């Protein structure tokens, strides 16, 4: 194995150094490996006993070494064991550990002259473990050397002299055979062919490959990948093999082995195999071929690699699929899994083994494409897909286009074999993913979590916040399949410097200008309840898209994921009105969708916040009216005999006035709801439709498209007035400011300023997606009746927005992320992670008045 100056080892391996004490292992390790790659028994002894020579600490030291090694191998890191390892039992342990993590065990033997070791050892005063030790180790080593292959080591390197050791210049780490990460595609991955040559050629042509002398190339540089099971059952196994071999050799195709291919190889190698499951057809057909061809087939099948990892690790192809922890690893177990999958040990009603559903538990990032089990229709489950559509059983031959994720297939020309398990598609069932998503896993949401997002980088969810969110989600939230989005919190503008105002448009415009934004959209802010509305054309649209049955044509939920309406019927009746308007406005056709998710405000405030109004706002008004009214009366009486109370009287008269304004302020947002048309829905974002999250469109686009729908039913739908403001144009700013003044003078809540683009970033990252500027009178509801008294207002003006703004950005990034994952049809847990994250972040303590 050792070339003159270089040693080759697999890039992911467990390198076991073996040699007597003082044979030079540690020096060698330090020279050729990173310090963190070396797990040394001496060091472990020192860690557990403060003495690296303590033999009493050996047991604990080896436990520690094993533990560290296990963690490293799990993480896919090459590890070097620096210990004597002259005893078979010690080496066995390492081989077992390597197998457990599916890495290749490698041994480097330091077979040094005994004299040399003894001499070196004598020079080390700290080691006095008896004269017999080194000779014993040397003899143990020499007896073992020839068994190393049998013990399971894949690479064995033996060094016999210090000169040989010194001659080694480098240890070269060879990529594993399955590592095709640099092959980035695009690919066309083809399911189980089973000798169906004609269909294969049709499919390849349909994929627009061009053939020259048996080599299929694609103008766009696409390559073919075969998931294995080329042979058996079908009519033209040799032709299929020929095509695949030719193209693999030419570099235009890749192929992984299937169980049928492996069995055929066994037969060709003269092993005793049961001839069944269509092997006979292969045999009969191959016998007619030349011996040279058969030899070529043998070589080819023997050289197939269990699985491939393509495209920087984003794509894995294996015949029967592959668990995440086995991706890019090498062991007998990996090979077996790749070819046979896993079974539960049970037998199903058709007498076939029940397969263990590894894909249901798959949480990896890589897409796994496989075949092996015929299915009526390929379906995604947790980023895995089975594309064996049973061509040989009269089904179809299917290819998956990567990275497009498109399926292309051709029908079988006839049924070549009869399947034991019927291949009919069950109509009306939820998709595999949707069925799987009926139940989410707790471990995906609890504890500290980090959610990767496209726009906001990594967002950390703290454990204590997850605890609160879990309770809210479990006790109050609706079916999580509906929850594709929770709205982010919104920060107010910086505090105004103007007398009498806490908020004023200037600061919002200044913020955006300084963030590098040139154009903003101002939208009137409605005072109601923030809701997310999902509407489908019909129940079937909901079933198709959300995997929800018997819960109506949609839902309306609050910012914490609860039902907005207490009664299902009211909700559905209300949604019918929205649905009508969408139909009439041609929305569904224009957007080529059968459903929509809207972000909206639903009024009146009193409809949802009734108990809050009664126990808090109304109550404060009632208490203040009584209390201050009587105080004013008493003060007036006192003033007639004592002028010293006049000041106090004036103060209380002001309070009386403020109380009246406070009551007026909240009353504005209250009206009784007796019928559906007493509700007013003001949508402001078209969050998502089929295949699209509309976060790349400007807010003007959103407003215009929503307006078209609202016009169809002005009785319940409210188009929000808005203005577009050029931040470099003083007149434009003045106009918007005046607009805000007039809105708030009429008692309006105020307005929201958003950057023209939905997602706005600058050098520092995301810019606030929206900033609210609330009116003077409205703020009485938030800060209390007396907040405008100068002594109060001046103190209220010192408020910090940092926490709120940071929260707003994180929640916004999570919200968008959830939507995008949903429309990409990712597993629900990936969407839920975002939604749960927003809820968890919302439990962070932030001044609720902001």
């Amino acid at each position, binding site marked *: 194995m050792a070339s003159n100056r270089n040693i080759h080892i697999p890039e992911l391996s467990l390198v076991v150094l073996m040699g007597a004490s003082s044979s030079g292992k540690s020096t060698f390790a330090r020279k050729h490996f990173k310090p963190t790659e070396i797990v040394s028994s001496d060091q472990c002894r020192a860690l557990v006993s403060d003495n690296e020579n303590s033999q009493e600490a050996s047991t604990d030291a080896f436990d520690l070494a094993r533990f560290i090694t296990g963690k490293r191998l799990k993480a896919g890191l090459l590890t070097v064991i620096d210990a004597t390892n002259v005893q078979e039992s010690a080496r066995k342990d390492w081989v077992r550990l390597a197998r457990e993590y599916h890495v290749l065990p490698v041994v480097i033997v330091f077979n040094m002259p005994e004299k040399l070791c003894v001499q070196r050892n004598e020079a080390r005063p700290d080691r006095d473990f008896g004269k017999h030790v080194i000779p014993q180790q040397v003899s143990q080593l020499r007896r073992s050397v020839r068994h190393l292959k049998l013990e399971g080591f894949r690479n064995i390197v033996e060094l016999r002299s210090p000169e040989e050791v010194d001659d080694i210049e480098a240890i070269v780490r060879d990529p594993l055979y399955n590592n095709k990460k640099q092959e980035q595609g695009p690919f066309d991955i083809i399911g189980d062919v089973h000798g169906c040559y004609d269909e294969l050629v049709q499919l390849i042509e349909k994929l627009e490959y061009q053939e020259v002398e048996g080599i299929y190339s694609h103008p766009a540089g696409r390559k073919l990948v075969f998931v294995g099971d080329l042979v058996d059952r079908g009519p033209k196994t040799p032709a299929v093999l020929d095509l695949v071999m030719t193209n693999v050799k030419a570099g235009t195709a890749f192929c992984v082995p299937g169980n049928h291919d492996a069995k055929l190889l066994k037969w060709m190698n003269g092993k005793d195999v049961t001839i069944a499951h269509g092997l006979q057809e292969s045999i009969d057909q191959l016998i007619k071929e030349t011996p040279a061809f058969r030899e070529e087939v043998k070589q080819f099948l023997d050289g197939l690699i269990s699985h491939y990892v393509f495209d920087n690790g984003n794509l894995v192809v294996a015949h029967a699929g592959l668990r995440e922890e086995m991706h890019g690893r090498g062991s007998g177990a990996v090979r077996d899994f790749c070819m046979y999958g896993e079974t539960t040990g049970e037998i199903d009603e058709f007498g076939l083994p029940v397969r263990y559903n590894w894909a249901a538990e798959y949480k990896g990032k890589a897409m796994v494409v496989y075949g092996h089990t015929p299915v009526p229709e390929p379906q995604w489950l947790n980023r895995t897909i089975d594309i064996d559509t049973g061509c040989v059983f009269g089904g179809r031959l299917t290819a998956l286009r990567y990275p497009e994720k498109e399926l292309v297939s051709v029908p079988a020309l006839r049924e070549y074999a009869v399947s034991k398990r019927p291949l009919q598609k069950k109509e009306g069932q939820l998709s595999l993913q949707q069925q799987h998503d009926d139940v989410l896993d707790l471990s995906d949401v609890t504890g500290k979590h980090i959610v990767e997002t496209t726009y906001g980088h990594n967002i950390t969810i703290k454990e204590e916040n997850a605890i609160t969110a879990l309770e809210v989600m479990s006790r109050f939230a609706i079916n999580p399949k509906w929850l594709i989005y929770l709205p982010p919190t919104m920060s107010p503008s910086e505090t105004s410097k103007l007398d009498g105002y806490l908020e004023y448009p200037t600061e919002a415009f200044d913020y955006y200008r300084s963030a590098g934004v040139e154009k903003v959209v101002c939208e009137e802010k409605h005072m109601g309840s923030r809701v997310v509305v999902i509407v489908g054309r019909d129940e079937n649209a909901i079933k198709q898209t959300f995997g929800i049955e018997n819960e109506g044509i949609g839902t309306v939920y609050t910012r914490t994921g*609860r039902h907005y309406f207490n009664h299902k019927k009211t909700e559905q009746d209300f949604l019918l009105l929205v649905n009508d308007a969408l139909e009439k406005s041609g929305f569904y056709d224009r957007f080529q969708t059968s459903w929509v998710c809207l972000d909206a405000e639903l009024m009146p405030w009193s409809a949802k916040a009734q108990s809050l109004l*009664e126990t808090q706002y109304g109550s*404060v008004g009632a208490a203040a009216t009584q209390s201050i009214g009587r105080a004013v009366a008493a*003060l007036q009486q006192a003033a007639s*005999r004592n002028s010293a109370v006049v000041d106090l009287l004036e103060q209380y008269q002001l309070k009386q006035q403020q109380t009246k304004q406070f009551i007026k302020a909240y009353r504005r947002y209250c009206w009784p709801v007796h019928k559906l048309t007493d509700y007013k829905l003001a949508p402001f974002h078209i969050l998502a439709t089929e295949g699209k999250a509309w976060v790349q469109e400007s807010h003007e686009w959103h407003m215009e498209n929503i307006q078209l729908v609202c016009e169809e039913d002005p009785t319940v739908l409210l188009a929000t007035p808005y203005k577009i403001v050029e931040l470099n144009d003083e007149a434009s700013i003045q106009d918007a400011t005046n607009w805000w003044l007039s809105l708030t003078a009429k008692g309006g809540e105020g307005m929201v300023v958003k950057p023209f683009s939905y997602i706005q970033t600058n050098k520092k990252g995301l810019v606030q997606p929206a900033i609210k500027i609330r009116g003077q009178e409205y703020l009485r509801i938030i*800060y209390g009746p007396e907040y405008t008294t100068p002594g109060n207002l001046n103190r209220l003006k010192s408020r910090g927005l940092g926490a709120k703004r940071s929260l707003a950005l994180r929640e916004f990034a999570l919200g968008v992320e959830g939507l995008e994952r949903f429309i990409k049809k990712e597993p629900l847990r990936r969407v839920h992670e975002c939604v749960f994250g927003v809820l968890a972040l919302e439990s962070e303590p932030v001044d609720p008045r902001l």
Partner: protein
Amino acid sequence: MLLTITSAHQPASDLSYLLHKHPDKVHEIEISSGVAHIFYPEVSETKCTVCLLLDIDPVGLVRRNSGPRGNDFALEQYVNDRPYVASSFMSAAIVKAFSTAMSGRCKDKPELVNVPIPLEVELAAIPVRGGEAVVKELFEPLGYTIQMERHPVDPKFPEWGESRYFTLRLTNTVTVQHLLSHLYILIPVCDNDKHYWTGQQEMEKLLEKGKDWLPTHPARVFIALRYLKHQRSLANQAMAMLLKDEVTEDDEEGRTEPEQKIRVHDLRLQAVRDVLVKANAKTVVDLGCGEGKLLKLLLEEKQFEHLLGMDVSYRSLEIAKDKLRLDKLLPKQRQRIELIQGSLTYRDKRIEGFDAAALVEVIEHLDEPRLAALEKIIFKYAKPIDVVITTPNAEYNKRFGNLAAGQMRHSDHRFEWTRAEFQQWGDRLAELYNYSVVYKLVGEEDPEVGALTQMAVFTTKDTTIGAQRFLSYGKQ
């Protein structure tokens, strides 16, 4: 907030001596949360009226971060009735403004101190939890004549109903010292809230200020309970914060369960324990363990080798940990029991592999459509050999006089099932997941409506589950 005291004693101006406040001045007294003003609207030979006007600083109220951590939520929101109502702030102002009078001293006319005089008190707005009946219970035994007027929440919206605020007028012939001590204690009792942390010293204050009259007051227990009201826990506050504009019925307030809770609930738990003992279960998971009452019963049985309590409420788990004295158990006992936060709407590997699962009065707290997830989590994934589920029997509700038809026993119940509904559900699950099921009633049985509680006991028919479990004990 305004407190008015009027004296009809002759000469009326004696009141000013008793209170130690000159009638021609406007007195200003700093209190912790603002200023108290004292002034006299009327001073004549026949009538003397004094006002204590409490000017609470609403901004300071929120900003001040005194008191133990978390206390800033005790009075909830930022739009607050505290500046406008008689509350513990008023008690604090009384004790500060009229400290001399309260201690029974009067420098100029000491002979007046112990003389009962005709007095009238008006509280402009006082919140009373429990309404008129509570006021009567508190003040009538002390000899007061009561006149009270309740105010609507908002006259523009009559449908919002009555507020909890009253204008309260009390008349009595009583010493000023007693009057003030009555108000000092009974105002916060009416309100049933405190603006500060209640600790050990509160008990002493109550005993000292009420020593002359509280021991003989017929409502003394009620008074003490409310006066010494404890804080809501921090965990609850986190919840309140999250749901800030979607008020949830507070458990304590929302509880309308009319049964004689203690006896019936104990009975239910004993029935569940008996089933688990009989099933020969060695490991049990209590799903929705709440404060750990069932776990406590099970811990006493040696048969149970491992007990896992799960609840979604972190606060309940904290209480359970306390009640089960987990910190004080011997290591061997401690190893038998574990508490975890978890949810019945998420699959959880930690609850898989138990001999038995108990869900005592749990399913009715889930929205009915969410039961689909619960069913899968328990019967498809966790797969215990036995599952015991109890839930209210809705038919029995008509035996409760105070429940309107269709009303449920608890404000957080999302549904309550009749016996037929429960059995239909159970039968479907048993069929779907290969379990056998028997139904039992818990509590005294009524020939027409059955018992208060119904119970279903599921047992798996899948022998491999049982066998695997059995082998895993390492026994033959």
